[in-house]
């Protein structure tokens, strides 16, 4: 019998070729709203200070998730808007697009949310987000010096 171990193996899924070089901004939050990671490559307009920006982004996604779950036409049990969701209920949205940008979102069941803002013509980024999540797992979750809930450096 042999077991799992080791920390320097590279993640197995191959990097998707679609989302090449057009990412504008990336955020990563944990379930308490702490912004674990923020990186921007191309952000011409800045309106808020970073704290408010993170809060706004997190609040937006939280509300959107709640809204999309409540408006789901296929699901049976409906609470009123504002009632917190139990795990396992509800669908999850994965992207929205405006005429200038596209925002893609992924949430793991453990509450880690990954957000990528890109050019509007970008295709479906779900595979890329999963890849980023597995990178997170490989290098952050397995790092013994990392304290969960603090921003990643």
């Amino acid at each position, binding site marked *: 019998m042999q077991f799992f171990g080791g920390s320097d193996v590279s993640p197995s899924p191959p990097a998707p070729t679609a989302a090449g070089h057009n990412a504008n901004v990336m955020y990563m939050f944990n379930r308490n709203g702490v912004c674990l990671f923020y990186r921007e490559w191309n952000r011409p307009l800045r309106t808020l200070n970073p704290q408010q920006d993170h809060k706004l982004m*997190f609040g937006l996604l939280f509300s959107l998730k709640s809204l999309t779950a409540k408006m789901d036409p296929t699901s049976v049990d409906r609470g009123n808007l504002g009632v917190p969701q139990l795990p396992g209920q509800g669908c999850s949205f994965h992207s929205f697009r405006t005429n200038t940008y596209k925002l893609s979102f992924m949430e793991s069941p453990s509450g880690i949310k990954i957000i990528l803002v890109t050019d509007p013509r970008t295709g479906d980024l779900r595979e890329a987000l999963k890849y980023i999540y597995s990178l997170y797992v490989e290098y952050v979750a397995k790092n013994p010096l990392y304290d969960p809930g603090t921003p990643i450096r």
Partner: protein
Amino acid sequence: MPTVGPRSGDAIFANVERVNAELFTLTYGAIVRQLLTDLEEVEEVNKQLDQMGYNIGTRLIDEFLAKANISRCVDFKETAEMIAKVGFKMFLGVTASVTNWDIEGTCCSVVLEENPLVDFVELPDTCQGLYYCNVLCGVIRGALEMVSMKTEVTWVRDVLRGDDSYELQVKLLKQVPEEYPYKDDE
């Protein structure tokens, strides 16, 4: 893009990197031995093992979710199946089975036929109250807490104490819904 379904425990187990089984068992044995020397009280050691397991579990869950590629489980029954079939297989290389569901579906038993942590282990008379594999209880508890389920995990049967197999009882206490973490007035 076609979505990939949940991967079976065997498939993932074949893909992850592994360490030598004896190394793993002996390292765990050394940890328990050292805890016994440091803490001396068997109850304290049990608690410490549970705490260590909890810390491991909170990180392990992300790895499990990333590798197993599953979406949220709809109810606790599915969760327990996932833990037994995919989780144990992926991390320890053994398959467990789920039995003894109670009427509401909140409490079940996970039975392990073989347990790699206890190869070559015998409990001496001075340590009869010790739950040698208590770290597994902590891992399950920590991992489930990170997916919004508060649980209580205890050992029902333990081969080191004379029973014939390992049985963990996993009881769901409550499901914690996600809350908006920021206060409204900020």
